[in-house]
Each structure stands twice: as C-alpha cells, then as structure tokens.
C-alpha cells in the first residue's frame, strides 16, 4: 500500500482530489472509453468533492466521460430525503459538475426487489468494464461502505443491517434521533471493491485512528473489513496526522519519509 500522511483535513482533501484529477486525465476518457470511479458519501470526502468541483469549474477536469458508482444507499429512505445518499451526491457533487445522470449509478434503496437491485448493480459495474478507481472511507469500527464487522471479505453487493456503532455515528444526520436513522442499507461488498483496479481510502480524524491501526498494522480480519485491502495490489490510504495516532512511530516515519515520491503523483499533469 501507499500511506499518504498529510498535516490536516484540508491537505487530505486537496491531495485526494488532485490524485483523482490526474488519474482521470492520464486515462484520457472518451465516448467509448469511460473512466469508472467508485465514490463514497459522508463527512470525510466532502472536502475532496469541493476541490474536484473547484478544478472542474477552472476547466481542469471534465466528468463527461466518467461513470460513477456509489458504494451504498439507505433502504427505505425516500430518495429526496435530505439525508439520502442520492441527495448527498446531488447537492455535494453532481449538481456542480458536467456528469450525465445515465452515468451516475447509485443503488436504489426503494427498489421493490432489493436483491435484484444489488445484482443489477454488480452487472452494471461489469458492463462498464470494472472500476478503475474506488474511493472510500472507513468507519470507526473499521468498515468499508456498510460492510460491518463480520462481513465476508469476499462479499458482493447486498442488503445489510447496520451495526449499532454505525447507527450511532449516523444519528447526527438525523437530528440526533436514533429512531429516525435507517436500519438497513444496500452496500457494495468487500469483494466488489477488491475487484477495482485501484482502491483509495480516506481516513481523517483521531476517532478513526484505531480503525486505521487495525486496518494496516494488524492482520486481515473480517472484524475490520478495511484490512482486506492489504491483499489488493494497488491501495492508497490518505490520512491526516490525527488519524495516525494509533500507528507505530516506525510506520509513520517510513511513509512520511517517502512523501516526495508520493507527491509526484499529484503534480499538475
């Protein structure tokens, strides 16, 4: 893996956005060659989305030939509910860029047949040629998307019941009222993300520090599903100082020491 350690959240957002920008530009997508991007929701990627929008408005990047696949969506929440992941993606990303709706894929948590919806999503990813770059975050319990502790490391897109930890973490988006938080979600599986050609995980804040430690310094374990990416050939973890607090000094020093090499990847193309 590459572990990119930056000073703070703003730097993480900028580095990540530049990385994505450069990857898309290098790929040089066109009408018969779309760049497929996996996307997360939540507070962690917000800064990155803002930066991508900024680069788009400056003319540095177009999403016309980018296909996006979001990781998850709540079950049973109306699509236009302000806390649905559809609303999140529209307000924080899609409405500011030039992506066409037919290229933006988000699981439908109100589908009449949820299992079929999950299978269709996997089929869409396959039809698009697989995912070039899957961007994700990490939960305080080490989960990726809604692959809660105990999720199979070879799981596919499916319905999941959310763990109490996740419901508590999400309560702040529902006026702090636990009874209003959805209890089920559709999510890509760990296996689904592992199939991507490259995986990039954003981890910021000291409350994620223990999960980062478990994910990269301990073994591969289905209780900390992000650990699965230790077995992926191209993973990038981007984090801030606060998130490194549970890591060994040796780990941090090593990766900080090679930042020059890492920073070359985000230079202006």
């Amino acid at each position, binding site marked *: 893996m590459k572990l990119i350690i930056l000073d703070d959240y703003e730097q993480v957002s900028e580095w990540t956005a530049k990385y994505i920008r450069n990857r898309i530009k290098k790929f040089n997508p066109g009408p018969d060659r779309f760049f497929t991007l996996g996307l997360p929701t939540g507070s962690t990627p917000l800064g990155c989305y803002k930066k991508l929008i900024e680069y788009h408005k400056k003319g540095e990047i177009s999403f016309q030939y980018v296909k996006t696949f979001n990781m998850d969506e709540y079950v049973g929440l109306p*699509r*236009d509910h302000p806390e649905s992941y*559809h*609303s999140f993606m*529209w*307000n924080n990303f*899609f*409405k500011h860029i030039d992506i*066409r*709706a*037919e290229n*933006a894929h988000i699981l439908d948590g109100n589908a009449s047949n949820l299992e079929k919806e999950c299978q269709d999503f996997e089929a869409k990813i396959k039809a698009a040629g697989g995912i070039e770059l899957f961007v994700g975050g990490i939960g305080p319990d080490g989960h990726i998307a809604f692959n809660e502790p105990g999720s199979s490391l070879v799981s596919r897109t499916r319905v999941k019941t959310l763990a109490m930890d996740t419901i508590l973490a999400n309560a702040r988006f529902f006026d702090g009222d636990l009874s209003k938080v959805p209890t089920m979600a559709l999510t890509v599986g760990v296996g689904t993300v592992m199939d991507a050609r490259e995986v990039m995980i954003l981890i910021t804040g000291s409350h994620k520090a223990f999960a980062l430690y478990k994910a990269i310094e301990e073994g591969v374990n289905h209780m900390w599903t992000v650990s699965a990416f230790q077995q992926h050939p191209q993973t990038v973890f981007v984090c801030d100082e606060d998130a490194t607090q549970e890591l060994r000094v040796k780990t941090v020093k090593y990766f900080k020491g090679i930042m020059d090499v890492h920073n070359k990847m985000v230079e202006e193309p």
Partner: protein
Amino acid sequence: MPSNKSVSDAPITQFVSCRILKDHRLQWEDLWVREGKILNPEKLFFDEEGFADHKVDCGNKIIAPGFIDVQINGGYGIDFSQASGDIRRGVAQVAKKILEHGVTSFCPTLVTSPPDIYHKVIPELRVQDGGPEGAGILGIHLEGPFISEQKRGAHPPKFLRTFKAGGVADLMETYGHLDNVALVTLAPELANSAAAIRELSGRGIVVSLGHSMADLSQAEEAVQNGAIFITHLFNAMLPFHHRDPGIVGLLTSDRIPPGRMVYYGMIADGIHTHPAALRIAHRAHPAGLVLVTDAVTAMGLPPGQHSLGQQQIDIQGLHAYVAGTTTLSGSIATMDMCVRHFREVSGCTVEAALEAASLHPAQLLGVSNRKGTLEFGTDADFIVLDDTLTVRETYIAGQQVWRK
C-alpha cells in the same frame, strides 16, 4: 434533447452564476425552469436523467420572485377608477410598464366610486396571467366606498356608503359583482360591518381595514370576523396612542385567532411614512409587512406639470403635489424604489426587503403555493437584480418580458 422524456420534452433553461432567494436566504444555486414553472433539478436528474437545453449566465446577480403590488391606483397618466374609454387597455398599459419595476403581478385598485362605475369596471378587469404584454392581475382591490368620512383622505365624500341592510345586500348593490375581486378595504366601525366582513372573507376575498376611525377592540373584532390586512398602516387611521393603539395595535395584538396573521401594507416612499414609523412597525411585526406603492395616475410621468383628470399635478422628484401647493396628491414611487428605500432605512437584510414585496403579498392573497416564491413547481415569475437592488430583467412564466 434531454432526458428519456418520461415527463416532458419541453425545453429546460438553467440560470447559472446567480444567487437565488430560497428558504428566506440568498443562496448560490442555479434556477431551473421548464414550461413556465420552477423545476426541481434533482428530480430531473434522477427521475428523468435530464439536463438543461439552455444555460443563462446571470453574472453573479440576484434572482428574486417577481414583486406583487396589491395597491396601485394607476400610473403613466392612467387612472383605474376612471371608467372612461377602454378600461382594459388602460390597465394593460400600466401592467406593461410596471414590468420595469420588477412587478410581475398586481391588484388594480379602485378608490371610492359610484355604483355604476363598479358595475361597469369590475367585470372588465379579470384575473389573468401575466406575460410579455404585462404583469398578471391577481384580482381587484376595492378601496372603499364603505369607509369613514373623517378618514376618507382623497376619496370623494359623496360616494361614501354605509351598511344599511347589512352584509351581502349592500355589497352586491354597490359593487354588482365580486368575481375578480381580491381585496376590499373598509372601516370596521361602520354599523353592520361584521356581516359584510364575514361574507367577503367567506368568499376568499381579503378584507382590509383602512380609512377608518376604529379603535383597537373594533379592529380586533373585525379580525375575528375574518379581516387580515391593514391598508397603508398609519395613513388614514387614528394615530397610535399608548392607551388605545387603534388599528396600529393589531401588529402586536394578542387577540388574533390562532393560526391567523394580520398583514399590513406600507408605502415606503420616504414621504408617506416617516422612516422611524416604518422601523417601529417592521420591528414589531416583521413577518406581516407588505410593501405597496399605492401609486396614482402621476406615477411614471416625467417631472413637471401634468393635467390628470380634474387636477393639475406638479411632479418634483418623488413628490407629486397639487399644482401650486404643498399638498401631496398621492405616491409616485415605484415598487423597486420602495424595496430599496425600505432596505436602506430599516437596515433589514436584502432577503427581508425582497420578501416584503413578494412572499408576504403572496401569502396575504393566499397564492404563495404558486406566486411570490422560487419553490419548485411554482410559477416562474422572477426578476434579476444587481446588488443595489436595481431590477435588470423581469421574467414571467420563465419568459423574459423586460430587460434594462
């Protein structure tokens, strides 16, 4: 061109680089319009996989709902209360000119007149949509004749009336028809007014208190019977007194029926109301303020002497005097001037000033589900303003009907 056409294949326009008045705040958001209505772009994206056909760059200006003037007696030499000639053409001329002031809907106002004028004019001034020909008519405002003699202002005394039989009979005998009527101003202290107030409000007509000697308890009783507006607060009513606040006291009355609100019109031309009075009223009851022009025939005419009806008028700046005197003969400020002046003297936010001329009159008239806001699904009647609150463009049903 866009979408899977599941809902409509009508062209979609996206106004970008603008700040729109939404949820009581100016927000950096795009405004989407299709088929004359404000469109929800998120629904368009996810449901229809649609996108805009045209983008209009607003140069970082402000987009607000079009202004609604619920009290305007004429302008540009036209007097709505004169039934001479082609009434509809006269109203249409004014309707077209007020687009320049950002007014997209209005209520042509008739001052106290004899019954035959009402019988003739009311059926001619129909509720109608606006468009390139002019601002839309939301209904007629009948200011009088059931008003107080002592507070008649410039209304002709011989045509004042009282409620003799009480209620419907007097109304119908005087006005003839009540279709197309949106507001009636009356003095609630007149005997037997209660039945008339109930009758009018029962028909969905806004009853407004004005040109009246009523004390607060008479005014409160009128509100309990259905009155919800005050015509040009402070003017043509008893002044506020600390032991009997009169009609002005409705702004802070505790006897307003629950769920109801009293709105009040104010002429913010800097002349008819002292700025300090404007501020007192606004601070006491900000949600109820409705800016009106109460513009008269002389509005819009260039400075100098004009012959209007039986009078000689002398226009100097924003003042219209009876020629050779210092007697004011009515307001000639335009709605956008009133909005700018109100903002300046009250120190209120841009949003509050704009809403006092759009959202609040729409709420007063019960049409805020389609006018006076930029909510999805409402009529795309809006204006583009710069930061000095000068109107630069006016749109009705999504179509540009005027530009500076």
